[in-house]
C-alpha cells in the first residue's frame, strides 16, 4: 500500500505533464514539436537498437568513470587538504582559481592536449565534478568535532584508523552533498564533452539529429538524458539513505527533543 502511494506521488506530475502535452498537440502539425505518440514511436526505434551499444553505453561508461574518479580524487584530496594545515594554506587560493574556470572552455584545450579520445571526455567530466566533492570534503574534515577527536586520540586511534573510523564517517554528510552536485554536473559535462569534434555518444547523436532536422529523434535524445538523470538521482538517494542512516536518525532525535 505504501509502495503504491509513493509510486502515485512520483508519477502524478509526469503523467499530468504528458497529458497536457498530448492535449496541446492534438490536431496540430508543428514540425518542431512532435506529439507524444510520435516521440514514443521514435524513442524505441532510435535508442533500442545498435545505438544503445554504440552511443548510449559508451556515454554512460564515460560518465561513471569520470564521476567515480572525481569522487576518489575529491575525497582523497579533501582529506589531505582538510587535515594538513600548511597544505590548505598553500593550495586554497590556487584551488579557487581553478574552480572558477568553467569546464566547457577546457574542452578545446584538452582536445589539443589529449586528442579526441575517451580520456579527453573523461578528463572534462573530472575537471568539473571534482570541485564540489573536494571543497565539501575539506569543509567536512575541518568540522570534525573536537571532543570526538580527543576521544579518538586518547584511545590511540591515529593515522589511517583516524581517517577510516573518525574523519571519513564524520565528513560523510558533506561529502555526499558534494557528490550529489557532482552527479548532475557530470551529466551536463558528459553531453558537452561529446558536442565538439566527436563521432559517438549521446551528446553527439543529439546534435547530429538537430543538424539533420530529425526533430522527434532529437527530442527523444533529450528524454534519454532526463531519464538518465532521474535514474542517477534515485540510485544516489538509495545509497545516501543507507550510508547516512545514522545521520538522519540523529537529526530526527535532535529535532524531536
Amino acid at each position, binding site marked *: 500500500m505504501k509502495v503504491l502511494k509513493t509510486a502515485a506521488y512520483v508519477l502524478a506530475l509526469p503523467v499530468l505533464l504528458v497529458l497536457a502535452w498530448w492535449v496541446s498537440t492534438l490536431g496540430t502539425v508543428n514540425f518542431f514539436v512532435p506529439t507524444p505518440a510520435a516521440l514514443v514511436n521514435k524513442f524505441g526505434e532510435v535508442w533500442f537498437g545498435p545505438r544503445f551499444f554504440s552511443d548510449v553505453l559508451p556515454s554512460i561508461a564515460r560518465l561513471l568513470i569520470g564521476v567515480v574518479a572525481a569522487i576518489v580524487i575529491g575525497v582523497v584530496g579533501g582529506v589531505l587538504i582538510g587535515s594538513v594545515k600548511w597544505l590548505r594554506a598553500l593550495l586554497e587560493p590556487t584551488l579557487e582559481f581553478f574552480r572558477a574556470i568553467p569546464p566547457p572552455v577546457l574542452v578545446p584545450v584538452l582536445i589539443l592536449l589529449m586528442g579526441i579520445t575517451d580520456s579527453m571526455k573523461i578528463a572534462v567530466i573530472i575537471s568539473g565534478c571534482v570541485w564540489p566533492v573536494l571543497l565539501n570534503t575539506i569543509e567536512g574534515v575541518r568540522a570534525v568535532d573536537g571532543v570526538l577527536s580527543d*576521544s579518538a586520540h586518547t584511545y590511540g*586511534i591515529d593515522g589511517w584508523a583516524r581517517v577510516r573510523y573518525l574523519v571519513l564517517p564524520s565528513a560523510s554528510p558533506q561529502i555526499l552533498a558534494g557528490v550529489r552536485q557532482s552527479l548532475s554536473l557530470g551529466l551536463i559535462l558528459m553531453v558537452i564533452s561529446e558536442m565538439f569534434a566527436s563521432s559517438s555518444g549521446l551528446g553527439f547523436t543529439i546534435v547530429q539529429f538537430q543538424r539533420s532536422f530529425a526533430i522527434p529523434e532529437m527530442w527523444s535524445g533529450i528524454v534519454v538524458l532526463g531519464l538518465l538523470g532521474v535514474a542517477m538521482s534515485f540510485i544516489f538517494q538509495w545509497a545516501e539513505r543507507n550510508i547516512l542512516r545514522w545521520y538522519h536518525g540523529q537529526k530526527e532525535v535532535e529535532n524531536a527533543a
Partner: protein
Amino acid sequence: MQPSAAQAAPEAMLSVRGLKKVYQTDGGDVEAVRNLTFDLRAGELACLVGPSGSGKTTLLKCISGLMAPTEGEVLLDGKRVSGPPKKMAVVFQEYGRSLFPWMRVRDNVELPLKNQGVPKAERDRLVDEALEAVGLAHVPRSYPWQLSGGMQQRVAIARAIAYQPEVLLMDEPFAAVDAQTRADLEDLIRVVWKKLGVTVLFVTHDIDESVYLGERVIILSSSPTVVQEDIVIDLPAERDQLNTRSLPRFTELRHHVYEQIQLAKKGHRPAAAGAPAAATAAASTPAAPTADSGASGA
C-alpha cells in the same frame, strides 16, 4: 620518554610534578595552571574539585597527553606522558560528542580494542563484560543517539572499562545528566573502581559528589591554579546514596570542602604550596547560601 621519576614517590601510579600551563593568545598570555603537584597511588580513587575556571579541564588535558604543559611534567607509572598513553582512558563530560554516532553501541566499545589488534574472541569477552558491568547488555545494537543521556555516558564508561586502563580520568562526566541518573552513575563508578582496582581521577565541580565518591579530595585554588588542599575522605568503604550522605562525618567533610572552595573563590591561596592538610578540624559553620554547589556546566 626518559624515566625522570626522580622526584615522584616510588609507589605513585600517576604523578603530576610542578605542572604549569600558559595559553598564548592574541590578548596576551593567560596562565590557566600555575604550579600543580600531586601523586595518585595505584588503585586510588581521587576527586579533583575546584571553583569554575580553575583550570580543571586544562589539567586533565595535560594529564591525558592531549596538551603539552608549559612547564613541569606528568608521569604515568614512572614514564613521562608526551601523548595519550596506552594505559589511560578518558571519559568526557560531553557524552553526546564522545561516542561515534555512526557506530552501534557495541562497535563503539569495541573500536579501541580492534584498533589495538586485540584478537576477536578476547575482544568479544571484554566488550560483553564491560557492557554487562554498566548494565547495558541489552542494547548492543542501538546507536548512541537512540539512548538517553545517562545511558550514553554508560556506553562511554563501558568503552573505557573494556580498554582495561590502569588510570581512568573522568572530566565532569555527570555534569550534564539529571540528578537521579547521576546518583546511579556515581554508584556505578564506585563498583567499577572496586572491581577493577583501577586508579581513578575524577574531576568535578560538585562538592557532594567529590566527597561521596572519593577516597581523597584534591581541592584546587582559583586561577592561576595551585593545590589548595589535599584531604583524605575517611568515610566507610561501602557507600550508598542514602546512608553515607546522612552520616555526620559526610556533612563535616562536605562543609570543609565547601569552605575551602569558597576561600578559593575569594582568591585565598595556601601559605605553603603542596602542604597536604588533614581534614580533622572540619569547621561546622555552614557556608554562605549564595554559593553554587554544582549547577554550572563547564
